């Protein structure tokens, strides 16, 4: 509903962080201005103010890690079927808010209505695709190992733990979904640093997740300066892995160095066509293979 047809003043949304299933402001009290994309088409105009997003601090990152750790036991211990159901539920909720996300993505990425809608549709479809992986990944990543002895030997993938995810900077929603869903569907919990310039679709995603039976803390979403939030996350001793998708080369190097302190699993940034078939790489990146031996005898 375009503004110029009515006199009614729009009710604006206060965008907030999503941490532990709740919607706090940044503990720092800081916000930063989010505007439309510079190349935005149509009536969006140039650099139009969209919202004040929370400018997260290192303490917000710390709180998010605590929430993610707290959620890990339950989420990783849930049945794969249950996780798949919940992820599918997320897709259902997204479907119901297609219009909202299309507008936000259009504003964020400077896309026209139909292109923005197509991106949102792709993101929802991707979420469905990943949801279905929950109870299949162990079958492609696990193995029954024929060892040379009287032992039953089975390798199964398990989630790595708490994963810090730097969402892609340019693909505010499809890219975002493409890095969150594969991490959580296998049982990891995440602290997501939204695209710095285009955080609003991510912050709105939090509202969807909050109403999708996803336990609080499984996905925590922070907006702000990527480097500022990512640096404490990369050094955090209770974070097990980090996806550097949203880091530039220089930031990625320094974060990888910091991540070495507790040997985080690091997924380095690489050029990705977010619209292409994602394959299983991201799904498998944050898994640990556990091999269990047991003797066979009477």
């Amino acid at each position, binding site marked *: 509903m375009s503004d110029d047809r009515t006199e009614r003043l729009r009710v604006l949304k206060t965008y907030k962080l999503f941490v532990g299933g709740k919607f706090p402001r940044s503990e720092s009290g800081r916000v930063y201005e989010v505007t439309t994309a510079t190349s935005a088409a149509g009536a969006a105009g140039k650099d139009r103010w969209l919202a004040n997003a929370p400018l997260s601090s290192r303490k917000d990152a710390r709180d998010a890690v605590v929430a993610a750790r707290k959620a890990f036991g339950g989420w990783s211990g849930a049945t794969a079927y249950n996780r798949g159901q919940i992820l599918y539920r997320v897709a259902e909720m997204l479907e119901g808010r297609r219009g909202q996300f299309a507008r936000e993505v259009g504003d964020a990425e400077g896309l026209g209505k139909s292109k923005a809608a197509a991106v949102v549709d792709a993101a929802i479809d991707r979420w469905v695709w990943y949801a279905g992986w929950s109870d299949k990944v162990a079958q492609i990543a696990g193995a029954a*190992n024929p060892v040379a002895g009287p032992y039953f030997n089975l390798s199964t993938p398990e989630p790595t733990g708490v994963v810090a995810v730097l969402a892609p900077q340019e693909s505010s929603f499809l890219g975002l979904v493409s890095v969150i869903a594969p991490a959580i569907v296998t049982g990891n919990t995440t602290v997501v640093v939204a695209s710095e310039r285009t955080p609003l679709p991510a912050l709105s995603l939090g509202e969807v997740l909050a109403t999708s039976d996803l336990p609080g803390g499984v996905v925590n979403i922070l907006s702000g300066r990527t480097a500022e939030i990512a640096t404490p996350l990369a050094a955090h001793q209770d974070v097990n892995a980090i996806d550097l998708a949203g880091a530039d080369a220089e930031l990625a190097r320094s974060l990888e*160095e910091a991540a070495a302190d507790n*040997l985080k699993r690091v997924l380095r940034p690489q050029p990705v066509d977010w619209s292409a078939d994602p394959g299983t790489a991201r799904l498998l990146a944050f898994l*640990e*293979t*556990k091999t*269990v*031996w047991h*003797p066979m005898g009477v």
Partner: protein
Amino acid sequence: MTNPAITNPAITNPALTNAFEYAPAPESRSVVEIAPSYGLFIDGEFAEAADGKVFKTVSPSSEETLSEVAQAGAEDVDRAVKAARKAFGKWSALPGAERAKYLFRIARIIQERSRELAVLESLDNGKPIRESRDTDLPLVAAHFFYYAGWADKLKYAGYGDNPRPLGVAGQVIPWNFPLLMLAWKIAPALAAGNTVVLKPAETTPLSALFFADVCRQAGLPKGVVNIITGDGSTGAELVAHPGIDKVAFTGSTEVGKAIARTVAGTEKKVTLELGGKAANIVFDDAPIDQAVEGIVGGIFFNQGHVCCAGSRLLVQESIQDELLDALKRRMRTLRVGDPLDKNTDIGAINSAEQLARIRTLADAGEAEGAERWAPECELPTSGYWFAPTLFTGVTQAHRIAREEIFGPVLSVLTFRTPEEAVAKANNTPYGLSAGIWTEKGSRILWMASKLRAGVVWSNTFNKFDPASPFGGYKESGYGREGGRHGLEAYLDV
């Protein structure tokens, strides 16, 4: 042991109770001929280091110098990497079936020379010949056999239709299983089509140099395998060299972290197999006699120089006394001594440096209030030795419960419930392995799912197989070696 109530004269009359003493049963040293000096094996040729530097390798059981080997410097590392790069094109272009045949040849030659290599390994490393003969060498050959078979089946491994090798792999291995760690590194690398530059540990270079000769006998093309000897600085040069595409390291967590920092921001793929502080958890319904064997094998196998050693015994309080009595009784029968004696159970500590570290931590255990116990044990006067030792009254706060000792020292802790056992087992930055002993199947599966460790041995311990993926969670490193999973480390996927 002797109960005074027993009146049989055969027991009470000491003259009639001579112990069954085993006479020395030494394996012959003559099956292995060690040259007085060895160069670096680069591009199919042995050559001195560019700057001519050498260092000695000694037998830890006697401190006798076994040989002098070259200390590779930056120039040598560069030359080795270039040789591997040059060989990569042809090697990776070979049909997988051809690469497979080279690996099969290597496996067979290792089997043929296994007695020689076992003696060599025991001499240079200090491990008992029983282990090098019955564990290390069979597993070395098996590893090459296993990965040989993958070389022409990579497209079925689940990494795409035409998975490509990475290029040149820089591999740095430790001193605890010198030849076995070499096999874990080189076999999958070559099967996948990579070429390698491998640096054996400073204190155990010889078996890798003998492996160079195995490559020669197998007719392996020049430059596919390069062996450079040296200390930590050589390893650092190799890892940092811009010409390598892959780093594979097994060793300490501290060095592993340094490597992870070094490769940050590069395209190099990394796998790290690091330290551990495994919990070996014994429930009150365990098969006690086998649990005792598993505990003993878990911590005293290879003098405890094992990253996945069961160095923390977590015993359920209700059977603590019974289990400790049985464990001590069993420890009294351990035979410490000459690594080449076929009846030796525990050999020499690998180096003076490692012995000092073990002593420091054991002393810390005592200073922090844990109770130290070791069986009476006559240790040789030369060489590096440490008696099998256990500490009781250990808490999670003690250094000996947290730090990797990498020696024959067991820390005993207790628990009351399965939840407590899991909490204590996981309460470590490491996550390499764990053991569970109980006759209850559902408890095993529950425990196995809760333990944050890459390998869980239930009702067994320290079992290895080329088909079985091995590797850690958390600070025990990343990547897996062995099995289908082990290929991933050497493929561009």
